[in-house]
Every structure is written in structure tokens, then in C-alpha cells.
């Protein structure tokens, strides 16, 4: 209701004041621009570029993060030994890596993937670690009482118990991946949706720019919704409880 009312309001305002603005466009113009870039293929191409970079970076960062998180969660001394190192690297803002990646990889997919992977790694690692620390201690007592081996304990008790929260971590990382990918494209990389929106702005085509913006929002929304659905399907109530937080 409210968004619809706002859109109508925006349309009316643009029509009344005349849409000659260089920075804003009426919703109807945006829709027209959207279909124009959709059908000439540039939008889909840009979307593919962005999703490929974000997805690959997410997979790489998520995997490394998961492995490190499990390792640190299991081997407490190692966790303590690496504490300072990790606390020193983790707060580096992901975009600060951008110039380094630019130096090393130049422009293109690889640089973007590296940055996305870097930014996905930390949340997955930290949430996996804390998920493993947050396992009901009684479950671990049970595993000890049953004299399970370490591997069996991880496989049968720890991972299933931590999985809903690990899934939350992956969901978070996936949305971070998209955000970082678009950010990198806007800031430097001549690829994908972020570059598209920047070019549209610089070409003073507000309708195209806003069409890109809406599309980026839609992609983000769909990604999020898809992941939530997956989480609920996989974990039922456990997943839903966690999703609220």
C-alpha cells in the first residue's frame, strides 16, 4: 500500500513539475527505461557478470570461512593462538582491499572475486565458530558418554547442532557478497550492475540509473527471499527461529 502510494505520488510530482530533471525520473519513465535495457540485453549481461563474481567469491570465501570456523571451534588452543592475527586482519574494511586487489589482479572478475571472498570469509568463520561454541553442552556430554571419536562427534553431534546457525551465516554472507560485488563495480571495476548504474549516472540518464537501482534492489530481494525459503525448507522450525534474529 504505502510503496504504491509513494510511487503514484512521485509520478504525479514529476508530471506536474515536468520531468526535465537530470537526477530524477518519473516512475513511468523508469519502467520504460527498464524494459529498454532489459530487451537490448545489457541489463542481463550486467546481472550475469555481477552474479558470477558475487557467487564465486561467496563460494570461495564461504568455504574457507567454514573450514577455519570448524577448525577454530574444535581446536581451542589454535583459536587462542590466532586471536591477535585474526583480530588484526578482520577489521580491515573490505573495500580497503580493493586497491590491493586492483594492483595484483588488475580489473576484471578475479579482482572482484578476491574482494568478495575476503568479505564473506569473516562472518562465516566467526559465526561458525560461535555456533560451535553455542552447542548445548549436554549434547557434548552425551557424545563423551557415548565415547564418540572426534570425527564422529563433529559429524553426528557438532555439525547437525550448529547447522542452522551456520546456514544463517551463509545467508548473511550471500547478501554481503552481492553488496560488495556491486560496491566494487561502482568504485572501480568496469563490469556488471554497479558499473551500469554509474555509467547511467554519468551519462545523465536518470531513468536508466533508477531502473538499474530498482533492478539491483530486486535482485537483492530475490536472493534474500530465495535463501530464506531454502533455510526454512531445510531446517523447518529451527531455521525459522534463527531467521528472526
Amino acid at each position, binding site marked *: 500500500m504505502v*510503496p504504491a502510494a509513494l510511487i503514484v505520488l512521485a509520478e504525479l510530482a514529476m508530471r506536474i513539475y515536468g520531468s526535465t530533471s537530470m537526477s530524477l525520473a518519473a516512475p513511468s519513465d523508469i519502467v520504460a527505461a527498464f524494459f529498454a535495457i532489459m530487451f537490448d540485453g545489457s541489463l542481463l549481461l550486467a546481472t550475469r557478470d555481477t552474479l558470477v563474481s558475487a557467487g564465486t567469491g561467496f563460494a570461495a570465501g564461504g568455504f574457507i570461512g567454514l573450514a577455519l570456523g570448524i577448525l577454530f571451534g574444535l581446536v581451542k588452543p589454535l583459536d587462542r593462538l*590466532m586471536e591477535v592475527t585474526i*583480530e588484526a586482519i578482520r577489521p580491515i*574494511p573490505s*573495500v*580497503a582491499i580493493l586497491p590491493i586487489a586492483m594492483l595484483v589482479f588488475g580489473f576484471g572478475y578475479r579482482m572482484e572475486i578476491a574482494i568478495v571472498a575476503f568479505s564473506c570469509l569473516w562472518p562465516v568463520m566467526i559465526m561458525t565458530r560461535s555456533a560451535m561454541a553455542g552447542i548445548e553442552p549436554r549434547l557434548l556430554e552425551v557424545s563423551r558418554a557415548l565415547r564418540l571419536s572426534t570425527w564422529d562427534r563433529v559429524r553426528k553431534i557438532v555439525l547437525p547442532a550448529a547447522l542452522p546457525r551456520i546456514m544463517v551465516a551463509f545467508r548473511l554472507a550471500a547478501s554481503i557478497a552481492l*553488496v560488495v560485488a556491486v560496491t566494487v563495480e*561502482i568504485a572501480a571495476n568496469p563490469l556488471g550492475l554497479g558499473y551500469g548504474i*554509474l555509467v547511467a549516472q554519468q551519462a545523465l540518464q536518470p531513468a536508466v540509473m533508477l531502473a538499474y537501482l530498482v533492478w539491483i534492489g530486486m535482485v537483492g530481494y530475490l536472493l534474500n527471499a530465495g535463501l530464506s525459503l531454502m533455510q526454512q525448507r531445510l531446517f523447518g522450525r529451527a531455521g525459522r527461529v534463527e531467521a528472526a534474529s
Partner: protein
Amino acid sequence: MRLSRLGRLLASFAVAALLVWGWQLIADYKLVSPVFLPGPDRAWGALVKGFSTGDLGVKLLATVERMFWGWLIASLIGIALGAAIGTSPRLRAYLAPMLEFLRPLPASAMIPVAIAVLGLSNGMVLAVIAFGALWPVLLATIHGFSAVEPRLYEVGRALGLSRASVIWKIALPSASPDILAGMRLGLTVALILSVVCEMIAGRDGLGNWILLAARSFRAPDLYAGVILLGMLGYITAVALAVLEARLLVWRNRAR
């Protein structure tokens, strides 16, 4: 107990020092081209030189200022809006779908729009930072408010409290851990967006500085800037954690 914690910390520092030493070795033996990876000695040298000429200090201050104001604006708006939405189911029903759509929108995607509307100004940068850092605070506040123990609301009703005093006396304190967590997240977002905005809009600051350093292949300067940004992120996180511990002292005491 305290001593063993100290020992652990020392050991952990030793590991970090070892890794820095490894980095130095790699750089010394040029296992990786020095164009990409200058040794920590050169990065440190660049850091010291930047500060002694006074250049880097000004840029650091500009970034910090930008980040802080944007974050403060975002936090205030986020808490106020969150309190309004969190306590009113009707408002939530109206606005929730729109928020759900806006939330995953990358704040950096707003930069071109903000440039178009506000130009390459400091106002634009502040608007983008505030917009980006708003979401974590807003959502955490809404969540914190809706997760308040319902019995506390019942107590409020039984005592005949007004809505404002229910918010002030019951909901806000009980939601404060969530809100502070959201603000911490918001601060991270604010730092990232400050850097991105400086890169894109060419505002003077650390983000712009490291980008220029990378473009002119001044790798030591670049690493110095990145280290500085990491330190900035770390210090702000620690400062907020300390603040959080101070503010939530009552909560730990009650347990």
C-alpha cells in the same frame, strides 16, 4: 586464571609477530613481486613518513569525521524510527514490505543516485553513509522492540504507563543490547561507505589516498593506508564494545 589469559594473549601476539616476520621474509626474498607486496618495514616507513609530513593525519581525521557523523545520524534516525515501528503493529504492517525491499539494496548503489541529486559534495557523502548505516540500527531496534518480554508490556499496561514512558522505561532498556549490536554493525558499514565514497567522489580522505597510491603503484603507501584503515576499524569496534559493556553493566549484574 588472569595470568593464563595474559600468557595466551602473549602467545597469540607471538604468532602474529611470527606471521609479520614471514611477510618480511617473503618480501625480502622477493617471492612475490615488491610491486604487489612491499615488506612490513617499507609499509611502516610509509606510515611514519605520512604522519610526520602531516598529510596522513589530516586524511585520517577527514575519514573519521565523515564516518562518525554519518553513523550518528543513522543511529539516531534508526532508533527513533525503530521505536516507532517496533511498538506499533499497524505501522509495522504498513512499512514492513517496503523495508524488506529496501534492506538488501546495497547502500553503495545509492551513491550514483546521491551524486546525481546532491552532487559531489560532503552532504552527498553523509547522506550515503547515513542511509547505509541506518539499516542495521533500524532492523536491530525493531527486532529488539518486538522481542521484549510480553509480560513487561503487560506490567506497563497494568501500571497505566503512557506509550512514551513504556518506550523509555521498558522497551528501550530491554532492547538496548540489540540496538547496540546494530549500532556496532552500523559503524562498520559507515567506515566502509566512507572509504567507498571517498574513492568514487574523490573527497579527501584515506579511501581516496589508497586508491591514488594504487593507481600510481606506490605500494608502501597503499599498505600503510590499509593498515591504518584496519586499525581504525579495530579501534572503533573496541571503543564501542567498551561503551556497550559500560551501558549494559546493569544487565550483567542482574544475572
